[in-house]
């Protein structure tokens, strides 16, 4: 359920008054965002208890942020997406501090540091935490991770212009042109044209063909 700007104002008004139905409507409308952020943070959590605490915090943040929202400045969608990410950053920082708290000099500290360091975590433990997005990768079934790594490496080598390399970074993260334009302080059309004319057509497509990746 997506709320129109008017619905956002009505719901937020109700949330500010601690109205249960409005709070329910808010949480229902933003469930996909909350679920996704909890899944992300949960992947970094130590155990189920920590994930549960964090899910509770995410729900409370959504409500509290909505109470502070100023409709005249921007829409609730964009505001919550941005500010929940700040909260997520804070939470990760807190988790990092907690992991590092015990002194390295004692055994407990050594164990805690090892837990926070994937390099020293058994491979199967990391495997448990990896996202299961294999279904989404069905189209690339024939592509091994080695081939994928080769493509990324080759792209990095071929794109010597820092501007194009920056665009590549955001494309690897799955960003769309308007988001890339915003973060780089450019016009969306410029990003779209430069990416298409200078990367996709002359480099990316031929490279995909060369590696047997169907487009």
């Amino acid at each position, binding site marked *: 359920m997506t709320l129109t700007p008017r619905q956002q104002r009505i719901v937020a008004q109700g949330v500010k008054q601690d109205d*249960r139905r409005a709070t329910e409507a808010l949480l229902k409308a933003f469930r996909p965002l909350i679920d996704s952020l909890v899944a992300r943070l949960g992947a970094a959590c130590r155990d189920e208890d920590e994930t549960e605490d964090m899910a509770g915090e995410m729900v409370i943040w959504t409500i509290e942020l909505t109470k502070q929202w100023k409709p005249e400045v921007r829409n609730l969608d964009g505001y919550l997406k941005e500010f929940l990410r700040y909260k997520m950053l804070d939470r990760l920082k807190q988790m990092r501090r907690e992991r590092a708290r015990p002194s390295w000099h004692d055994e407990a500290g050594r164990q805690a540091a090892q837990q926070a360091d994937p390099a020293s975590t058994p491979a199967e433990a990391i495997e448990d935490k990896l996202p299961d997005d294999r279904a989404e990768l069905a189209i690339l079934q024939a592509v091994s991770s080695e081939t994928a790594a080769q493509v990324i490496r080759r792209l990095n080598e071929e794109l010597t212009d820092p501007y194009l390399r920056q665009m590549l970074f955001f*494309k690897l993260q799955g960003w769309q042109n308007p988001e890339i334009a915003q973060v780089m302080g450019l016009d969306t059309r410029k990003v779209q044209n430069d990416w298409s004319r200078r990367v996709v057509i002359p480099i990316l497509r031929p490279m995909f063909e060369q590696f047997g990746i169907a487009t």
Partner: protein
Amino acid sequence: MNADQILHKLAALALPVHPQAALQQPSDECLTDDEMTALVARENVASSTLDKLTGHAMECDRCWALVSLVIGEQPLGDLEAARAQVDRAIDKHLTRMPQPEKAALGETLIKLVMQWMPEPASAQPAIASAYRDTSTARPAAINITDQDLPVTLRFALPDGPGAQVTVILLDQQGEEAFRGETDDQGEVHFWGPAGSYTCRVEGYDGPLLQETS
């Protein structure tokens, strides 16, 4: 799948994210908290931060994981487990809140009744009843003003609330403006916008009529 989507999938294959790596202690070269905050804001991102992304972050597990977790679009973590956790967290939070006041059901319930109550206080409930007798049929048109919002639509059957029923509101052009499933009390909330609508109930072929009371 376009080239960008393929590229994104290739990155997922080539550079898998280890979420716990985001919790490693940063080195001097790593993205700082301020740089990450600027990236989330997507404004005023310094060129030195952008350079760091294409240089250091591509090689550093900690920075790649942190960026992917916070601003990446790749699905991460166990979404089903997260949903269950969020369900519990929401239930826990809502149960602490006071129950909303329920307006009483109207008495004019014949076979199938849809009743809509403007809030607050349900001052002047209008009754929309449904009959299979098409000779007296009129469309179940309801006019909702700004003052009415949010509106509770209550759907009742002769033997009780019409729970888990899909109520549809069509605007004046006949376009679907709202679709909502009723809860256990047969209620669904409509948050607007104000206007004239025609009510429909999914799975019910007979006319829904409005009966003024």
